[in-house]
């Protein structure tokens, strides 16, 4: 029964490992990619914990988290491209 809990903790640890790139990443795109994949991993961990504990509320939070993660990724992407080309 507790195997789902172990998997859930494993995915949360993977998300914590992504935070290293989020803190260190040299450019804004690196940080955003790391944040996006941490978001997907947290979503997976939440689904597994919901299945373990049998409470449905975590699934709703997982849906909201997946949708909001996409929206902020697109927001930062549109902000970065600026509508024009920048010379390096």
């Amino acid at each position, binding site marked *: 029964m507790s195997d789902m809990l172990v998997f859930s903790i494993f995915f949360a640890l993977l998300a914590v490992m992504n935070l290293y*790139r989020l803190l260190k990443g040299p450019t804004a795109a690196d940080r955003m990619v790391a944040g996006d994949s941490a978001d997907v991993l947290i979503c997976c961990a939440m689904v597994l914990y919901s*299945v373990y504990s049998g409470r449905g509320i975590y699934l709703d939070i997982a849906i909201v988290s997946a949708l909001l993660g996409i929206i902020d990724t697109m927001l930062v992407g549109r902000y970065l491209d600026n509508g024009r080309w920048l010379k390096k």
Partner: protein
Amino acid sequence: MILLRLLIGAIIVIGGIFALAGTIGILRMPDTYSRMQASTCISTMGAIGVLLGAALYAALILHAPGTTVKIVVIGLLILTVNPVGAHAIARGAYRNGVRPENGMKIDDLGRDFYE
């Protein structure tokens, strides 16, 4: 019953291996675009494996159809909506002047829009 649990565990472990590969890729890859490619590994096969395992667990062991359908909807959302974000951020990074340090073998986008 125990065989079913082993099967579900195996599916989730396969997803976990791909998610671990993606995370290690994000930490180790040398330039921004390669890190983006590694992060795609997490949001496809890792998410598919985990959500498939969780959906099978909810359907066959917990006997909860509502939970199963919700998990499948989460999987569809991640699969349909995640590439849009990856595309936006890759284009934004390129337009903002991010280039790999080691150079690229061929760069058609720079060739067509800079010279």
